């Protein structure tokens, strides 16, 4: 008997081909969420390629709070002022800023000839509308908190001048103009529509944004400083897996990667450029001064002397930090407090302060590595018995009166870089929303307001010294280090960035080019 049917092997092959054909058909149909319906950037060699993770939020310059979302919109929008790596202010859409004698009014002069990418000029009305949107009662901007209690109103003075009226004098007001969500948008901008019409007056034009994949940009030929933008475009590629982004960097698919401990262990740093940008945060050790054992100033001080700060830098920051002295003045701030002894690990002082006692407490944090290193350091010091409670970010920052980060006896929380006196109103003031130490000292609050109110250099120096002395001696917060951002960068990139790519620096690409 002869079978006329196909053999199993042949049938399997036909089935596989059939499935493959369906795959092909579906593959041809498969798409991403292309929100701009334009072609991708094709000239990859002239494009700077940056890895990001999925922003996990809506892309609107007025409300973006996530770093990746801020970068997606920040390459297109332009701030009034930005910072460089040394902490100096760079004029962007603003060319000058000046305070009134009483410090209650700041007059900002806008750059002539600056244009939005739809061709319309950037005017004072646009700046006013942007800041009113940030600070309005119904604002959802993460930047609103920075202006609360400081900015009273903003008004136009002709087309080219904006007047900011403050609720109280604030000598570092220009620093606030470099903050979150402060990219200038047209006065008629409708919140929530940015991806439909990605408007801005910045360095690049958004060419394509695809959810889950990334974004491509081309240089904005009408940018006010277009001559200094030497790359043809930028590409943001989404990698939700750190291993994949590391391999992509090694394979040359992306031009930079954050220098984390995993990256440092996997690559030969000498093959790349190591870019260390300016200071970007501190991880504060917040001590609840209302509860035992940290209601005892001697215990707080003993803890501060027990910490091996260089050990933290080596083991937590991979060297990308500098030793701090428990005060909120970043090393690149124009004024540095004087007269304080630099704290370092001193076990004799610890023994003297504890006077034979053994102190037990728990470290609560969402920063596992920092918590583990600190716990190991302290448990090696006689007189400390330390437990560790590592929470997820959601658990740690949970809303509600009992949220761990504002109530546990000892917490470790990172704070992004701000003006020194801002921290007084945010974390050292008795009724401050984020006063995790439950600290109250009217003197430091008064000193902070005086510091903000004066522009006299000598007076400010004296006030800075007094503020720092209280922070150093009262120790509601131990600040062992100031962290710096560091990245590895492909050697095909030439020129230097003004600072790390974040909102403080306005994502500036001025002077950066790509070699042939």
């Amino acid at each position, binding site marked *: *008997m002869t*079978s006329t*049917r196909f*053999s*199993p*092997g*042949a*049938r*399997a*092959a036909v089935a*596989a081909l059939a*499935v*493959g054909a*369906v*795959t*092909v058909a*579906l*593959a*041809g*149909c*498969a*798409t*991403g*969420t*292309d929100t701009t319906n334009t072609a991708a950037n094709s000239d990859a060699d002239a494009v700077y390629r940056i890895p990001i993770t*999925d922003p*996990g*939020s*809506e892309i609107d310059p007025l*409300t973006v*709070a996530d770093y990746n979302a801020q970068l997606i919109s920040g390459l297109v929008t332009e701030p009034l002022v930005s910072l460089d790596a040394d902490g100096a202010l760079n004029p962007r859409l603003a060319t000058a800023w000046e305070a009134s004698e009483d410090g209650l009014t700041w007059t900002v002069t806008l750059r002539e000839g600056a244009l939005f990418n739809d061709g319309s000029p950037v005017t004072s009305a646009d700046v006013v509308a942007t800041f009113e949107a940030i600070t309005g009662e*119904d604002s*959802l901007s*993460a*930047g609103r*908190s*920075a202006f609360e209690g400081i900015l009273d109103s903003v008004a136009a003075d002709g087309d080219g001048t904006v007047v900011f009226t403050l609720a109280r004098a604030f000598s570092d007001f220009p620093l606030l103009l470099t903050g*979150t969500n402060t990219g200038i948008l047209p006065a008629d901008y409708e919140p*929530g529509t940015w991806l439909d019409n990605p408007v801005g007056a910045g360095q690049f034009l958004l060419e394509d944004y*695809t*959810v*889950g*994949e990334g974004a491509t940009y081309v240089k904005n030929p009408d940018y006010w400083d277009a001559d200094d933008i030497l790359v043809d475009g930028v590409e943001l*590629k*989404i*990698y*939700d*897996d750190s*291993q*994949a982004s590391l*391999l*992509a960097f090694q*394979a040359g*698919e992306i031009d930079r990667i954050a220098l984390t401990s995993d990256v440092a262990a996997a690559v030969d740093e000498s093959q790349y450029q190591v870019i260390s940008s300016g200071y970007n945060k501190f991880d504060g050790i917040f001590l609840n001064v209302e509860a035992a054992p940290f209601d005892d100033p001697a215990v707080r001080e003993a803890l501060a002397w027990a910490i091996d700060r260089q050990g933290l830098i080596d083991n937590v920051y991979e060297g990308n930090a500098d030793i701090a002295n428990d005060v909120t003045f970043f090393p690149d701030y124009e004024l540095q407090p004087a007269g304080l002894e630099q704290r370092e690990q001193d076990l004799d002082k610890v023994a003297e302060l504890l006077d034979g006692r053994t102190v037990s407490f728990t470290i609560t944090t969402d920063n596992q590595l920092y918590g583990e290193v600190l716990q190991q350091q302290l448990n090696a010091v006689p007189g400390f018995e330390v437990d560790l409670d590592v929470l*997820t970010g*959601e*658990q740690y*920052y*949970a*809303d509600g009166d009992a949220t761990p980060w504002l109530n546990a006896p000892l917490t470790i929380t990172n704070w992004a870089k701000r003006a020194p006196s801002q921290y007084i109103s945010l974390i050292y003031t008795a009724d401050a929303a984020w006063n995790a130490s439950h600290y109250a000292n009217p003197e430091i609050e008064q000193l902070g307001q005086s510091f903000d109110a004066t522009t006299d250099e000598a007076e400010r120096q004296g006030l800075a010294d007094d503020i720092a002395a209280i922070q150093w001696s009262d120790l509601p917060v131990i600040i062992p280090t100031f962290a710096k951002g560091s990245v590895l960068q492909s050697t095909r990139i030439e020129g230097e960035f003004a600072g790390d790519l974040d909102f403080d620096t306005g994502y500036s690409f001025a002077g950066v080019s790509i070699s042939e």
Partner: protein
Amino acid sequence: MGGGRQHYRIIGQRAVQIPLVLLVVSVLVFWLVQVVPGDPGRNALGPYATLDQVQAWNAERGLDGPLVARYLAWLGGFATGDWGTSLVYGDPVVGLVLERLLNSFALGLFAFAILVPVALGLGVLQARTEGSRTDRALTVLLMSLASVPEFVVGVVLLIVFALLLPVLPIQSGAGVGEGFLPQLRAMTLPAITLALGYVSVVARMTRTGVVETTGSQFYRTAVVKGVRGPALFGGHVARNALIPTVSLLGVYLGALLGGSAVVETLFGYPGLGELLVTATQEKDIFVLEAGVMITGLVALTALLLTDIAFTLIDPRVRYARKD
């Protein structure tokens, strides 16, 4: 009862079972999202937003009412085609999920197209060489492969084919929507990774089925009657040996089409699995619910089709009925 009526009966049963299963799953997902720590408004607005801002954001999106009322509102919308708006992306959920499903379908079918010939081929080869060095070597190889997680297999493939050689891209999403060949090239590594996760079990089952069949009485009778070659294998071995394998492949097809969170995340492939990972992290409840419903529907439909295929392949199979 005839084969056609049998199929109608299976379909009728599943038409009742599938919605019930999906309903239970939707309740569980909705409830679980509420009890795990975290707040969608806080996730969206960041740590520096005030509590008032977070509450306003949640209220604007209907996330502040009683749980049961919110669930019923969602269920009513879902049933009528209004799947809501993504809390993360601000886009309509229906377009977002179906688009990602299509991408996962493409990747899943590609992986299936690799899985079927490779696994069946290896299984038959092992059966034909039963007890030999080849059989033993393949057994060790396949068992080793089965014990390695998808993530590790994917990373090894990336290192070899994207970093050392390099002939394939690391980010698979780069090829999506850019034509057939770039897309096929970009999908190759994740598809192989997905397929390798199932090859071992399918090959083992194929081997066992073929060995058992070739040791049976009817096989020996066929041989004695002079049946040889393709007729012997196709008419007597494959039809009997592959019944459990086909059932298994049906289940795997459902799993492959629904998307893989691990593989899609590793390779940056914009599929449903990757979307669900983000939705879970950000508590994007409407995307999560819709994604889980669709994934479940795909898996259950695959099971239904497998049952039907089962009855077609083996007419002896009859599903029990109490009457």
